[in-house]
């Protein structure tokens, strides 16, 4: 998957969790989305895992600062799967 494809798929995930379209940029973070609570953060993580068929570790999740980090993480996981 290219970065663009990952962003597009992620926007679908965000739309499902927040019920509204959110334009995702690398720097988008919880601070930009009022509904992005710690509760919804877990839902986002689980929905992303389901959508991309990957698993994040506890360390992965703690290191996430923004959407750019999330995309990079997904990309790395997908690349690992291909090997």
């Amino acid at each position, binding site marked *: 998957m290219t970065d663009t494809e990952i962003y597009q798929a992620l926007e679908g995930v965000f739309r499902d969790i927040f*019920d509204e379209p959110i334009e995702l940029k690398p720097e988008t973070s919880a601070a930009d989305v009022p509904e992005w609570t*710690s509760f919804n953060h877990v839902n986002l993580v689980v929905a992303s895992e389901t959508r991309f068929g990957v698993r994040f570790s506890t360390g992965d999740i703690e290191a996430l600062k923004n959407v750019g980090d999330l995309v990079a993480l997904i990309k790395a996981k997908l690349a690992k799967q291909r090997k």
Partner: protein
Amino acid sequence: MSSPIALHWLPELPDPTAAFHALRDTADPRARLERILAIAQHQLDFVQVGKLDRQLERTLAELPEPADFQPVRLAWLGSSTLEHLLPGARIACLRRRLLLHSYLAPYGQYRQELLDPGSALARWRPDVAVLCLDHEHGLVDPGIGATRDEVVAAVGRRVDELRQIWRLASEQLGCAVIHETTPILAPALFGSFDRAAAGSPVAVQARLDHAIAEAAAADRVALLDLATWSSRLGSDTWFDPVRWHQAKQLVAPPLAPLWGDLLARVIAALRGRSQKCLVLDLDNTLWGGVVGDDGVERLVIGQGSAAGEAFAAFQRYARQLEERGIVLAVCSKNERAIAESAFTSHPDMVLRLDDFAVFVANWKDKATNLRQIAETLNIGLDALVFFDDNPAERALVRAELPMVAVPEVPEDPAHFSRVLADAGYFEAVSFTADDLARARQYQDSGRRQQAFESATDMNAFLSALAMRLQIGEVDAQSLARVTQLINKTNQFNVTTRRYTEPALRGFASDPSSIALHFRLADRFGDNGLIAVVLARADSAAQLAIDSFLMSCRVLGRGVELAIMNEIVERARARGVREITGEYIPTARNALVADLFARLGFTQRGPGAGGGTSWTLAVDGYAPHAHFIRTGEST
């Protein structure tokens, strides 16, 4: 996906995106609530459950106390995160027309709240409390070296504590109590030997579970048996250690829809709202094959084939349900005498006629028959579970009688019992001598009165089926299947004339005759080749229907009307003025004794074999109205 996690007893939601858009755009709250209820009767994953729950929240803000929904006030008493389970529980309650209001006791403070009569919890006045204690909180640890007696004593102390909590809840709050059992999550210390080492975490937990179940039964506390469900799907599925350490969630979010349903069915059982009666179809549900066509001796049931064994196992499960107090009934499209003969004369049949409180076998639509069954038993339609392998019948009942529980039925009979069990329709919170006697009582009262009349207007349903009838000549390609249908169809068959392949080929190759086959598809899929009509020219102006037969699977949908229109049109194109037909009675084709009358023919006298002879003037024929699109097959 066919898994309990996906709620596999519910039908799939055909177009989730469109359904959620339509929901969001529905302005009237009552209409929106009905839409939410309709969507809730489908398979939903945890994200979809969350979306649906947000629409429910929005709707209830506008319409706080909707009629026809029963409120439930549930206090959640837990030692870990439960918030993520709320949407699934609310939607699962809604599925049962229960509106769940929740009080979430602050994380791990349920004990203080229970002890203080002035606490927020006490003031909130729940009518049910669910106690969810995680594996770490509920831990009993007598030490790995503990003797059996020491373990028993430690478990006993823990159970006493729990009983005290239950008593506080039921006495202080005056509410029913549900206790969630805890799955075994401890990693193995010895391996399989853990089970035998009295002090190992695995053995201690197993002993504790057993003791809790016994105490709960004695104290009339209901169980939400997560431990058994955990072993059913695997604790690795239910429990995600990453989620535990990230958010203290014992139940992984993807399992929330199933967990919610498990909770909701216990709440429904506490309210006496579990289903009471299992209504079973016969052909391809209790046995393989169609008794009216195949005959009793050729039914697939019992030893001799894997499918036969699977059908027998399903019958055994139905009988077990009957023994615990679930009423059994039959609702089948069949000649009653033929359907009954399967039970009286097949040696491998597990169920017997007297296992059924009501036995309905006729050709009326099943919604009408289900109403009659409920009336006969004097129970609500919402007490019925309707189990039928035919998706069109299931769709009809769901559309006509949304209060009847209609589980999906897998293709393979090997999975029937499991899907029915997973659906949890018959959830109970107690088992008494009355339950044991109940099935028998219903059987007696059911046998006393069994009369069936009245039909439902089904036009809307038939129209929504979007049926398409494809007409084709009997040709080399279709010859085998047509011959097969001609030779096995016994019920919808006016003359029951049998043909071999060569004889049929000869018939079809005569340019003056008509030999047509019909395929029917609907929005559920292709029913395949379902009807055959053979007609020969008695003269240039006269056409005689030699054979008119149809599979019983598509009865009651007006297919024969569409077929007749087609025949008349073809006859007219050939200059035919008169079409004749004959009905030759057999032991099995009483169903079509009046077919020609229904199709617009006039009786002209007695016919061969004690039957009747019919005529139709092509000029005076008014095409029948039906809901089927027709076309030539390509």
